[in-house]
């Protein structure tokens, strides 16, 4: 089986032993008086005019280490991570595809990096040209009338989108619309964004085949409905075939349709949210447009709208005036929902997405959905053939799909989390576990278009091998991982005996 097998000390997939040593905090390496002197000004300037009453009292305790210590420490910490660059990372709903290096290099050119956000537009024509063209490309791929690049991530795009829905109803003096409908399969950010925006989130069930329960939807809509938040394909990994009917029902009730663009990768260049009837959408550029996930972020969550919502778009927007580009802010857009961050968005991420979009071009964009869908359906077919249970076996997979470990949990006592943890030992990042909440013991698997067939085959072999281990030696799987820098961590202890920061004296409890 070659590389497929649990890692052992002579296996190339295993971690070198020194990486497994408990690793001191940078604070614990600190020695008073030691410093990375080259990094700060060579002199101590005079500050005596700052009143003593305003000065710091308690000494500031930051690590005091040499430059080499810091560089070695953080380089070694990086080596304790799984990442796309080092491992297959089929984390469903997150689109962990290859982040082209050119995007990083070109977004970090000095002219872009050094530009102050308040610099005049005359000193930003290069940046603004990229952002304007990105707005235009995003309009085209989504079929929306106008786009704002302002939101910093998907959830902020959701907030902006729901705020626009609110502003729209208000502008029509329709104050009775207080509810946002959210399918039970939706990501947690959807109801959280609706509530943050002052709405009540009402749940709609998913039918047995993965599509929204139409009868329940008909029941739920009414004059209190402000809108519905949907992703299509949904988080259960299928395309909702009734989308036009759903749009009809919600629109007839006077509500608007919000599209959560987390799964846009599945349909890029094939179908457009605007054509499906959505009024407002967000995109996750850190998913579909391959900007880095950075250990948690940053992202970018541009919003697109139909014509009737355009006045409410968040600012700033980029417009073209003759040969010049310029920012448009709230002064020119009195109905705008306003500003979401102080300086208008994650520009460096938008530049990365722009470079990626230009490298793909129109043909490349279509290939994104085609090959991410091919990889997902292939992986699902192989896993089904190997005896795993797809959550929706009769359906096509979108760019992702769910397998449920319900049977394995019952028969072998080894659950989805155990499989996930054991996959780490086999050198694979785990799929998304226990989301969406409606499928028990689920693994949401998203291989993305940038993975090779060989990688997918290895992944199947690993899951088969783990199931075999679960039969013969379940404790091995339940005790996984074995080869990571740490064994399975005690989350209950973490939440009960809180240790959230290093203190020079005692820990916070």
């Amino acid at each position, binding site marked *: 089986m070659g590389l497929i097998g649990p890692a052992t000390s002579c296996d190339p997939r295993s971690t070198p032993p020194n990486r497994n040593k*408990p690793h001191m905090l940078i604070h614990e390496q600190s020695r008073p008086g030691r410093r990375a002197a080259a*990094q*700060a000004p060579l002199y101590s*300037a005079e500050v005596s*005019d700052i009143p003593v009453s305003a000065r*710091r009292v*308690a000494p*500031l305790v*930051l690590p*005091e280490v040499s*430059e080499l210590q*810091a560089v070695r420490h953080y380089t070694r*910490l990086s080596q304790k*991570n*799984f990442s*796309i*660059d*080092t491992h297959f990372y089929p984390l469903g709903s997150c689109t962990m595809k290859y982040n082209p290096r*050119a995007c990083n290099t*070109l977004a970090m050119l000095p002219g*872009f*990096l*050094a*530009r*102050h*956000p*308040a610099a*005049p537009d005359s000193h*930003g*024509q290069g940046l603004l040209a990229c952002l304007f063209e990105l707005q235009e490309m995003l309009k085209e791929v989504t079929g929306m009338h106008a786009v704002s690049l302002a939101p910093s991530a998907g*959830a902020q795009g959701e907030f902006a989108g729901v705020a626009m829905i609110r502003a729209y109803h208000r502008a029509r003096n329709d104050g009775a619309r207080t509810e946002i409908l959210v399918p039970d399969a939706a*990501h947690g950010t959807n109801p*959280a964004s*609706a509530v943050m925006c002052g709405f009540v989130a009402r749940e709609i069930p998913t039918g047995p085949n993965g599509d929204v329960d139409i009868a329940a939807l008909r029941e739920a809509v009414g004059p209190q409905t402000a809108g519905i938040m949907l992703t299509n394909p949904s988080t259960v990994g299928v395309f909702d*075939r009734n989308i036009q009917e759903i749009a009809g029902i919600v629109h007839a009730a006077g509500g608007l349709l919000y599209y959560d663009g987390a799964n846009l990768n599945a349909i890029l260049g094939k179908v457009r949210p605007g*054509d499906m009837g959505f009024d407002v959408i967000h995109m996750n550029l850190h998913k579909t447009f391959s900007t880095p996930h*950075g250990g*948690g*972020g*940053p992202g970018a969550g541009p919003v697109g709208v139909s014509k009737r919502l355009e006045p409410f778009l968040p600012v700033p927007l980029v417009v073209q005036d003759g040969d010049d580009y310029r920012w448009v802010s709230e002064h020119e857009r009195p109905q705008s929902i*306003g*500003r979401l961050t102080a*300086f*208008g968005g994650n*520009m460096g991420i938008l530049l990365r997405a722009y470079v990626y979009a230009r490298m793909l*071009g129109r043909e*490349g964009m279509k290939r994104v959905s085609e*090959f991410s869908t091919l990889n997902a*359906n*292939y992986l699902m*077919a*192989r896993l089904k053939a190997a005896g795993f249970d797809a959550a929706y076996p009769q359906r096509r997979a979108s760019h992702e799909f769910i397998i449920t470990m319900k049977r394995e949990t019952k028969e072998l006592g080894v659950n989805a989390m155990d499989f996930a*943890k054991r996959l*780490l030992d086999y050198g694979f990042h*785990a799929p998304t576990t226990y989301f969406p909440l409606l499928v028990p013991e689920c693994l949401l698997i998203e291989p993305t278009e940038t993975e090779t067939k060989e990688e997918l085959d290895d992944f199947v072999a690993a899951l088969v091998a783990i199931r075999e281990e679960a039969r013969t030696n379940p404790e091995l799987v339940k005790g996984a991982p074995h080869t990571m820098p*740490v*064994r399975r*961590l*005690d989350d209950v202890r973490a*939440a009960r005996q809180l240790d959230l920061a290093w203190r020079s004296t005692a820990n916070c409890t």
Partner: protein
Amino acid sequence: MPFVPHTDEDVAAMLGAIGVATIDDLFDEIPRELRIGELAAIPAGMAEMDITRLMQARARADGQPLCFIGAGAYDHHIPAAVWQIASRGEFYSAYTPYQAEASQGTLQLLYEFQSMMTALTALDVSNASLYDGASALAEAVLMAVRANRKTKSHRVLVPRALHPAYRRVLRGIVESQGIEVIEAPFDRQGGQTPVAALDALVGDGGFAAIVINQPNFFGVIEDVDVLTDWAHAQGALAIAVVNPIALALLKAPGEWGAAGPERGADIACGEAQPLGMPLSSGGPYAGFLCCKKDLMRQMPGRIVGRTLDLEGKPGFTLTLQAREQHIRRGKATSNICTNQGLLVTAATIHLALLGTAGLERVAAACHANTRRLAALLCEIPGVEPRFDRPMFHEQVLRLPAPTADLLHALAAHGVLGGFDLGPDYPELDPALLVCATELRTEEEMQRYVTTLARVIAARTQAKCPVEPKI
């Protein structure tokens, strides 16, 4: 095919395993009439060398003018190691550390970040970042309104001397939950927020929280002790908005106010950009948020804790997740999911390289440079300091001509002279907010001064009207 590895044989084998004839068949559940043809408005793809040429030309077009603007984003030295390490694929291309055992690098780093931020603010708990300083303030206000069971008020008091964009973002985010934002005036002489003016604003409703900005948007150092005590006397929470570099010199939020059980700001938030993040036209930056421990269950965002593995070895994991949207959905403390992790990676490495002494030196150098710059500029007739109170690293100057005109002329000479306060503060017009960080040299400051003097002189010679000094 860029970034798609499939050979023709792969595709054939994969389609065979699925049992379909073409890739297109995989889309057969999508209603026909919804399918689109060509994406006409998307240009054809480009090779890396061609997009490189285009981006280099565009970056060059933006130039690298000499920058004396601060106003919430600051041009500091970033050690070379910071982004070399932060750009390593293991940090750059990982995601939220859901699988803790395979993410100990990110998790330990975040724990170290939390430790550094709690040290800077002298508070108990830090989260692992929010989008930026302004949205962090909005989250702090939402958190305070939820947490304040004393006043049960939905009003918050915010200084007018707070960044205008922060005030706008705050309003846009919190007003949808029925929270009212009330502005406290600033003193025209000193530029600080006078506590004497606040009593008149209390009204019947009281305040859930009071925002205290140190230094304030004008660079002026506020009487934070008095303001914090006033907040607590009202039963309001004190929310500090602070610059992390300034905290090397200025009193930490946890130490604000008179000694006693209530001592200290309850929440501190702000913009982490000065800690190793390039200006980059406004982002990505990172918001930080710290609080006293009795408020931590109201905190938004990720928090990392240290725990033990099943062999008793220490390790790190996301914790207090019952606050978050993926568990609590509509009842979460915030909707935030993706945050600004990579920027926090940079900030942590930055702080480790600078250490206490380095950060103090940077802060002191910024302070001294801005004083020096202001003194030099005030030698030009008609230019004078607008406020008479001490500042940290920004200063408001009164100008002898409309600010926008002067800035425009300066920019034509490759100098970005500062932030025009006129549009947001008509009562101060014409006024300019200048900043000289540790990066600005004596020659650069001299260049600014001679350019401005020349620009003003040229206007006078052209007999442009100059506002008389009052």
